[in-house]
């Protein structure tokens, strides 16, 4: 059981990292999008391994379906340009990017392993305790949806409600941006209209 769990972890992680790298380094943007879908699905797999079934489903519905579709729409709408030259910028910042990413990784690795100690599990940085089998059992049989739903309507009701307004704001913004404009949303500094 343990071994299978580990193997699954490494498998999914491998797919996830490869597909994420694919998103960045694929020569054509459409391949990137497909790669992104794969990455999202792998993340959902990771969530399943972390006893987060609701999260996994949400991940697939929202990310792998919703967001990627929007992205593909955008790719299609802007697709006239030859993509070859829009691959990777050969600018000084690319070098910096590798350096920064490496530094970032090393720093976080250093921090979470408490200074590269191999036996990190016993470290007391995080209040980590192995989840007891019983709770895992209940989570796996009953699912997390109930807990999350209850929390959303009790403890997190305020952010939940505010989130609705956030979505409205995003919607309004998107509508205004893409609305077919017969109107004159032009440069605000040049046009003058008599007021009052």
């Amino acid at each position, binding site marked *: 059981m343990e071994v299978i769990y580990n193997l699954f972890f490494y498998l999914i992680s491998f797919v996830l990292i490869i597909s994420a790298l694919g998103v960045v380094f694929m020569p054509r943007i459409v391949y990137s999008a497909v790669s992104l879908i794969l990455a999202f699905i792998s993340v959902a797999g990771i969530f399943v391994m972390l006893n987060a079934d609701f999260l996994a489903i949400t991940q697939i519905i929202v990310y792998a379906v919703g967001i990627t579709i929007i992205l593909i729409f955008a790719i299609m709408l802007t697709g006239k340009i030859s993509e070859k030259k829009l691959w990777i910028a050969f600018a000084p910042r690319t070098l910096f990017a590798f350096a920064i990413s490496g530094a970032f990784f090393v*720093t*976080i690795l*250093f*921090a*979470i392993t*408490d*200074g590269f100690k191999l036996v990190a599990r016993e470290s*007391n*940085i*995080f*209040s*980590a305790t192995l989840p007891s089998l019983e709770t895992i059992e209940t989570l796996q049989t009953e699912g997390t949806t109930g807990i999350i739903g209850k929390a959303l309507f*009790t*403890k*997190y*009701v*305020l*952010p939940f*409600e*505010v*989130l609705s*307004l*956030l979505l*409205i*704001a*995003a919607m*309004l*913004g*998107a*509508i*205004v*941006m893409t*609305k077919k*404009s*017969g*109107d*004159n*949303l*032009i*440069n*605000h*500094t*040049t*046009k*003058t*209209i008599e*007021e*009052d």
Partner: protein
Amino acid sequence: MNLLFDIANVLLPEAFLSILIILCIILTFVLKEENQNLVFAAALTGLILTLFSFIFIPFSQENQALYGNFVSNSFTIIFRILILIGTILTVMLSRRYTSNFSNSIGEFYTLILIATLGGMLLTGANDLIMLFVAIETLSISSFALCGYTKLDKLSNEAALKYLIIGAASTAVMLYGFSFLYGITGQTNIADIIKVLPNYQPSIVLILSFLFILAGFGYKLSAVPFHVWAPDVYQGAPIPVAAYLSVVSKIAGFAALTRFMTLIYSDISIFTVAIAVIAVLTMTVGNLMALGQKNIRRLMAYSSIAQAGYVLLGLSVLTIEGVSGIIFYLIAYLFMNFGTWAAIQIFATETGMDSIDDYNGLAYKNKYFSLCLAICLLSLAGIPFTSGFFAKFYLFKAIAFAGLNYMPLLIIALVNTVLGVFYYVKVIRAMYVRTNNGTAKQNGKLKISLSLQSVLVVTVLTTLLIGVFAGSFIDISKFAAKSITINKKSPVESFSDISSFIR
């Protein structure tokens, strides 16, 4: 009912604002195009009513609402009031701007109101999730507002840059949140405070602090998270730029101050980090402002530098410092808004925003130039303006915090001197240079009533704060007292003035 009690005692203005938002949305979609200006009236009256609803909230005690997601005390109340005042001014400033387009007026005000709701919730958010949602509500509405002038390339570009940098820094902040959550296993700040002292300070804690600071620093445009600010301020509609440089920043400061004082106040490394960022922020802001030719970019760098001064007040982490921050932000709200209002007036009338276009303005528009000059002098901190008292009070808090802070004080003073140069540059353009005929600004500016009232109100308040600095300092002191600073070892301070007299 617990819920109703919470709302009546703590979240009444926010509840009002939500109702107002829904009303505005309905009005936006129901009204015909030519009646859309009604949304402006609704928003303005609603905001003023919301401002009055603060009367019903208990000022002096601390109340939690909705399972500890939101905390209302005098500190958050004063910041919410400031945010509301800033919003009212923004709405009035936008009146002229929105009259340029016919079918997207209502949405503009709705977005501003949603952003304001986010900002107000940000000040008192007491839960990491609440904090995140509030900051994102503010951000996402701001992205949309930035690109509102959608046929203008610059506006689109500004919005896109703002969004990308914003999303990236949000991701970093969330990374920091995840570490904080990992260390304590809690998302509620009150619970975090209870649990956190049980753990040894580790690098993860520092990382979480720095990553969260990156998220807030992006809102405050603190160096090195400031890079978006000049481009966005230049490209975005001017009312939105004013909103970002004032309201959004005030909300960010409120949240950062609470966060810093509640969670990260007992280890000195965090104050060192804030101090480093403060020094960087004001120095870079001032240095880069020196060579600017566009007044909007100049104001962007100026607001970066101003954020640096405020961060300095946070770095001392005393009650004095916090009250200095509050007083500085009160003064900053009005003086900065006044400047933006003047820029908006000039831009709408002439369509120009370069400093050279202001040449010789004082000879034709005496009062307008005077108002702008007062605001700029106040920003520069010339004695006997509100800006001077704000700086004075803040620097005094730093000076009294201990000898360790002396280098900071000296750097701040040098920066203040540096700042005078570029503010005076604009004034010199208006008063000393003559208009050599290239500029279009012939004759008097026709200033519409709403813009005029914004300018007059802000300038008068700036002067008023300069005259009655004492009472405003009292208010900020009162507000700062509700902040608890969990310092284990207080920095040695000159508690007794007589010790160095004798």
